[in-house]
């Protein structure tokens, strides 16, 4: 089976099958990341579509020495960031709070916890939330996150620790 990076190189040459294979592999995880990032599953669908379009537009610039996942997730993060900026410019103070995740069809008790946590995740500043999601849910290493977000590795480390500290405080633990 071809690696993601080989498939992306093929996409850069205009290979449709390679693009289909990449979408099949990564559409769901990318959507999940965006849903957690923006807090709205249906908005995440729009963001995912925009992200895939931007991934294809940037295909020629893909460096095969990089991991596809960190590169593509970085593009998706930028797409979401642009959307947040537009939302703020229209008068919204924060990224939209999750509203659709409760439709996942889980027991009521878990729904309540989820609502609570959606608030807590959404309370995290965007830059901390991005780093935390990429590390915790996406399993990316610090260098990969640094590559995806275009920041220094030390900054990633610092953001991750700040995010964890903020969540601990928010849940009433850390002093």
């Amino acid at each position, binding site marked *: 089976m071809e690696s993601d990076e080989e498939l992306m190189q093929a996409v850069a040459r205009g290979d449709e099958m390679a693009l289909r294979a990449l979408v099949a592999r990564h559409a769901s995880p990318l959507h999940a990341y965006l849903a*957690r990032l923006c807090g709205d*599953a249906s908005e995440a669908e729009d963001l*995912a579509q925009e992200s895939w*379009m931007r991934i*294809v537009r940037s*295909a020629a610039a893909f460096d095969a020495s990089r991991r596809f996942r960190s590169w593509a997730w970085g593009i998706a993060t930028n797409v979401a960031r642009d959307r947040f900026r537009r939302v703020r410019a229209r008068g919204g103070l924060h990224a939209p709070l999750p509203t659709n995740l409760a439709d*996942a069809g*889980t027991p009521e008790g878990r729904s309540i*916890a989820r609502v609570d946590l959606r608030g807590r995740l959404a309370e995290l500043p965007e830059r901390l939330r991005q780093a935390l999601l990429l590390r*915790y849910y996406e399993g990316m290493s610090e260098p990969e996150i640094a590559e995806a977000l275009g920041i220094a590795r030390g900054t990633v480390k610092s953001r991750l620790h700040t995010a964890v500290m903020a969540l601990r405080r928010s849940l009433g633990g850390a002093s």
Partner: protein
Amino acid sequence: MSCEDVQERLTEAFLARQAPVPEDAAHAAGCAACGSLVRELRSVAEHLAVVLVPDLRPAARAACEARALHVLRAQRAAHAPAPLRGLGRDLARATLLGLLALPIAVGHAWLVAWVGSAVLSPWLPGPILGWLGILYFAPVVLGLGVLYGAIPLAVVAGRRQPLEES
């Protein structure tokens, strides 16, 4: 083993969604500060575990693929050179270049035929000289034919290489 180091590793393990190494777990069991951190991290992990995301709807997945393919096709169309654009000019240029070889080939053939017939006519009868002439001129004509036949092939090969590189 300082508490600071242990807490650093405990946080790293939490972020990597891994269990703490046994040494750190043992330390945390007997240390109030590190034990408290472990409990807090466990609490955060429990909360993060219930952030569920609905699956991507098949229609949305199909839309992702369709829009990405649309962009890919548009890019391909924009970058592909029009197949016939400039082809006539390339062919004319190659043919002119090929025509330069024509006087050289004809002149050479005439020289060989003239010298050959002048030298050999005292010794060889006319029909044999004629056949020798045919044997010589046939490859010359064939060579010229191959030369001009190769012109379009050379032009196409020259245009294909940049296409493959793009």
